[in-house]
């Protein structure tokens, strides 16, 4: 299968890329690792006139940590994130980076692409809701820092303006006493998750101080399950509370029947994965090392 013909432009800097995108206008698409874009082009779901390749722009693939938190450059690949010191310190990052798609996709796919594609099945957008992440963007009108909440506003639709690209992801390093887990179920390694659930919570003296619960592949956008967070916050994460949070997560989900499964099956997965993610997050919050990754048949 061939993509439809397009003109190809290789940008050597962010500013050059923005200039190219602005000059070309609405027919242009941004190519980073290509793991979301190329399948779309090959199936002719999209036929851009021009491709602006940002994949070689220097210094956009760095992970930096300082007192303000973590910054992951948009072009950082899943493999590189999985192998980073950050993944050792923030387990929910490792859960995702190490289990997203398969080995081959992890070589090429980037965190910025995962966020900018606006695909509700991509793993990173759902996960980043649990870390209150900010998306750093640059466009013809300068730089903006946007909240991950609301960044994906509809199916394949982000709030990025024409000519604007994602340059990095920023979040605060979870404090000690905070634990998280990203649990995803998929039909096979290369498949997108059927459902995924990310949980990050801070526990102090057995009480949940704060909680974040986010769902992937469960609707038209990544979904923050705020009622599930409310069920957990201020209480001890006992079995009752976990069941209530799982019910609330199911209520927040909006799955549809498709080839990955029926909506009913997906709601059961939301409940199951929410309970599992809370359980692992709680153990990690108490300092326990727990292995976790995407599950498939």
């Amino acid at each position, binding site marked *: 299968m061939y993509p439809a*013909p397009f003109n*190809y432009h*290789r940008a050597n800097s962010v500013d050059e890329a923005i200039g190219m995108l602005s000059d070309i206008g609405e027919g242009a698409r941004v190519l980073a690792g290509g793991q979301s874009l190329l399948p779309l082009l090959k199936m002719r779901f999209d036929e851009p006139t021009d491709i602006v390749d940002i994949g070689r722009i220097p210094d956009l693939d760095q992970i930096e940590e300082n007192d303000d938190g973590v910054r992951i450059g948009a072009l950082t690949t899943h493999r590189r994130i999985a192998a980073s010191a950050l993944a050792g310190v923030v387990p929910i990052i490792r859960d995702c980076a190490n289990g997203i798609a398969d080995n*081959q*996709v992890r070589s090429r796919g980037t965190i910025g692409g995962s966020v900018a594609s606006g695909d509700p099945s991509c793993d990173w957008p759902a996960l980043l809701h649990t870390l209150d992440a900010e998306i750093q963007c640059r466009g013809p009108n300068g730089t903006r820092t946007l909240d991950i909440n609301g960044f994906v506003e509809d199916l394949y639709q982000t709030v990025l303006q024409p000519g604007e690209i994602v340059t990095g992801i920023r979040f605060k390093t979870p404090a000690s006493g905070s634990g998280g887990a990203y649990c995803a179920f998929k039909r096979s390694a290369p498949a997108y998750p059927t459902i995924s659930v990310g949980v990050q919570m801070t526990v102090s003296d057995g009480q949940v101080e704060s909680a974040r619960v986010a769902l992937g592949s469960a609707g038209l956008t990544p979904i923050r399950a705020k009622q599930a967070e409310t069920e957990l916050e201020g209480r001890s994460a006992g079995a009752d509370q976990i069941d209530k949070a799982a019910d609330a997560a199911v209520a927040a989900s909006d799955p549809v029947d498709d080839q990955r499964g029926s909506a009913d099956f997906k709601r059961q997965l939301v409940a199951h994965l929410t309970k599992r993610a809370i359980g692992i997050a709680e153990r990690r919050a108490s300092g326990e090392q727990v292995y976790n990754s995407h599950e498939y048949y």
Partner: protein
Amino acid sequence: MSERIGITVSVNGTQYEREVEPRLLLVQFVREELRLTGTHIGCDTSYCGACTILLDGEPVKSCTMLAVQADGGEVLTVEGLEKDGKLHPLQEAFSEHHGLQCGYCTPGMLMSAHHLLEKTPDPSNAEIRKGIQGNLCRCTGYNNIFAAISDAAEKMQKGP
């Protein structure tokens, strides 16, 4: 018609310079431009891994990359595994253990296995499974594939 782009790619140690259409996929570059047809196109949708090759030492699905993205890179395909007319230990082990039935997935399996053993010379069974997680075998001959990779790892550890 879009303008052709000049690219230079090293494939199995040989430098190739070509002018290519931007939409040319890396797998088509390898198979049709260079006539290296050992790399197979399976599903063509980024699922099956039959088209797996190594680019700068990392496994990639060559059906899900443009040739222009590999400009300046070093590619290893299944044809590059044998040395001086002698099969790579992985290829020998796949043969000995009957690690293939129809053989369609084999080039991709070999490249993923090669990458695994470069990073993890003595893999556990779980690591072997994870190493070829992005490669599907429609004949479901996975057990013999696992055995072949395990045996090749052992032989490569001992040396020739």
